[in-house]
């Protein structure tokens, strides 16, 4: 049964999780080895799914009536995200061999990382909304456990709890969506729903659409839930690279892209998605410009780039968003792991204490530069192509122009904060620390090199990826433009020719040059900031606001305080006396009885 293969990307990491856990913390060497073996195996099973990316292979395990059947299916979208999860997962595990060397409770660490890889594969492979919800929550659990991995550090624990609570809000939206779907169609099957979204009444459909938007925003740390991601940076850096940059935070974008055909026509939904994406991209880019913690800068940058993807979905560029998702996973994982090497070498995350690391860490400098240039959107690196596609989608399709212009502004800001980050870390005068710094170790290099190669080359997959998505997603309308079709005719081979064609088309677009100009202005503005001092001074207010994360932390605090106050106030009702509790149960029973009788009567 060839379709049993579909279980492997979930099963192999989960087996590894058990194995590492059972080995016990007395044998750290064996734990490292086992984790690497199982994650690489998982990566191999993920890659083995690629031949199925353009067709639909399904697997159905009947589970009786209470739960939905366990359904897995391949298509371009799910296979590609499985590959991202398993391959980047295995690289993060390899990186951890150096990074986590000598840490306590490695069993817990590796078990949760492997458990996460399996859950993420399940999340994207399943076609049942209920099971999607289950896997969705499993990834949130792993994220929580790994953020709070250093559980003797109150900051880490608080960050973990914050992430857990905020993503739960999103999970609620997804659960409601799933239950509504079941109530109206009697099945949780996603594809059945996408084929005919009108089985659900329009009002409920729009509730579902906005519920899913909230779910996606919470999971992907989008406006107004973006505050959990920077606090999640207390996690060990490979975890940040894997969960909080490359995979889990993409689940929200995946959800929106997957359900785009169903919600496309809901009035106001696309605009709402675009605005959420735009606000996240813009505000997070501003915050990245003023942060001093290296990992926080990268976290804000992740929020910003996810904002680009969300915006692209809203703008109708589903393909552009997924393509940027791929590019971003690769170069952001590279940046995070590079930052991990820097942090490991120096023992600090504060960029003000770095500087001049170019000499002492030449290898890290080289790969980090590659990732940074891709993030800034410099041509021929993968970030350039995908970002262009997004902005092109935003400028076309009759989308509001003002949002597109703000996105272009965010592109410039991206370039500016990237240059700031790189110059603070690797250039300038070295501080006292950098003599002790050591460059990345062997395992770290093994993980960084493939990612660097990917940053240089994944844009070549544009054509094959596009054909795979187009042939396997029957309900999505994917489009790139018209020019490429002619080019494909000339080039003959439809897949690789398309890369060429799209490349040509992008180079011909005036918007490309516009964006490139903005990127260069962003670069120059940062490099020449001393000359522009008077201009920058006028934006002092913005800087202040950005450092205070635009008041969202204050809102969070207020909510937390309010909840605690309510809890304290309700404490009076908890007398602890059995008689009162029984009395309350009886009272509740009476209320339910009366309600049902009223329901019967009407």
């Amino acid at each position, binding site marked *: 049964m060839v379709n049993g293969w579909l279980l492997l990307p979930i099963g192999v990491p989960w087996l590894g999780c058990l194995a590492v856990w059972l080995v016990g913390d007395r044998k750290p060497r064996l734990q490292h080895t086992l984790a690497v073996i199982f994650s690489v195996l998982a990566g191999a099973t993920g890659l083995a799914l690629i031949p199925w990316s353009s067709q639909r292979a399904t697997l159905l395990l009947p589970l009786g009536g209470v739960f939905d059947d366990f359904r897995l299916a391949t298509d371009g979208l799910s296979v590609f995200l499985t590959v991202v999860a398993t391959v980047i997962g295995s690289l993060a595990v390899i990186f951890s061999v150096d990074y986590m060397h000598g840490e306590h409770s490695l069993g817990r660490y590796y078990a949760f990382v492997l458990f996460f890889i399996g859950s993420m594969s399940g999340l994207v492979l399943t076609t049942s909304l209920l099971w999607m919800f289950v896997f969705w929550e499993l990834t949130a659990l792993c994220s929580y456990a790994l953020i709070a991995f250093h559980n003797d550090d109150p900051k880490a624990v608080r960050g973990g709890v914050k992430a857990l609570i905020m993503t739960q809000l999103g999970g609620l939206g997804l659960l409601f969506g799933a239950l509504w779907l079941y109530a109206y169609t009697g099945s949780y099957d996603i594809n059945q729903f996408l084929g005919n979204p009108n089985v659900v009444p329009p009002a409920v459909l729009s509730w579902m659409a906005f519920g899913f938007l909230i779910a996606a925003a919470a999971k992907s740390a989008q406006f107004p839930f973006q505050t959990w991601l920077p606090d999640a940076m207390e996690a060990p850096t490979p975890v940040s690279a894997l969960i909080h940059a490359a995979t889990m935070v993409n689940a929200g974008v995946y959800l929106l892209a997957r359900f785009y055909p169903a919600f496309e026509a809901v009035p106001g939904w696309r605009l709402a998605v675009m605005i959420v994406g735009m606000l996240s991209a813009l505000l997070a880019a501003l915050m990245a410009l003023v942060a001093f913690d290296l990992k926080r800068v990268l976290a804000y940058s992740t929020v910003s780039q996810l904002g680009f993807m969300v915006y692209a979905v809203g703008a109708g560029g589903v393909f552009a968003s997924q393509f940027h998702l791929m590019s971003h996973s690769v170069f952001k994982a590279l940046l995070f792991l590079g930052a991990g090497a820097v942090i490991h070498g120096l023992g600090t995350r504060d960029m003000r204490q770095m500087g001049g690391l170019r000499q002492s860490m030449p290898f890290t400098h080289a790969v980090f530069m590659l990732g940074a240039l891709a993030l800034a959107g410099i041509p021929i690196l993968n970030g350039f192509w995908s970002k262009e596609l997004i902005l092109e989608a935003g400028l076309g399709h009759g989308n509001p122009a003002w949002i597109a212009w703000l996105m272009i502004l965010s592109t410039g800001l991206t370039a500016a904060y990237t240059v700031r980050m790189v110059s603070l870390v690797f250039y300038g005068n070295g501080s006292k620390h950098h003599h002790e710094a050591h460059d990345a170790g062997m395992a770290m290099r093994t993980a960084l090199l493939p990612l660097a190669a990917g940053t240089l080359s994944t844009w070549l997959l544009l054509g094959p990826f596009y054909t795979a998505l187009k042939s396997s997603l029957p309900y999505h309308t994917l489009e790139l433009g018209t020019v490429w079709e002619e080019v494909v005719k000339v080039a003959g081979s439809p897949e690789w020719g398309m890369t060429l064609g799209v490349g040509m088309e992008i180079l011909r677009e005036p918007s490309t040059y516009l964006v490139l100009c903005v990127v260069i202005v962003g670069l120059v503005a940062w490099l020449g900031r001393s000359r522009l001092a008077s201009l920058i001074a006028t934006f002092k207010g913005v800087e202040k606001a950005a450092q205070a994360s635009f008041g969202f932390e204050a809102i969070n605090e207020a909510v937390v305080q309010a909840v605690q106050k309510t809890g304290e106030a309700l404490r009076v009702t908890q007398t602890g006396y059995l*008689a009162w509790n029984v009395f309350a149960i009886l009272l509740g029973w009476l209320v339910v009885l009366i309600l049902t009788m009223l329901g019967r009567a009407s």
Partner: protein
Amino acid sequence: MDYLDGVIVLLVVLGLVGIGIYAIMVSRNLIKIIIGMQVMVKGVLLAFVLAGRVSGNMGLGQSLALTVIVVDTIVAVVALALAVRVRRRFGTLDPRALTTLRR
């Protein structure tokens, strides 16, 4: 079994459950509370059998009742063991002493 029999059994069920709940609410001795719980569960057992009879699905009602008997025994055993622990720890069987979880 005609309609009247059903009503009588239902009244017995309500009576047993009511007695049980009353005992749980007013007793100040954990052992008596556990006994009250047992009485209540016996009422529920009867209700299962009755429901099986009324719905014409005797087998289901009886098997559920058997399951509840087994579960109920375990509950009673665990509850009594807890009562022993409570007595040793607090020196009393009064449930009003067990409010330490409140704060």
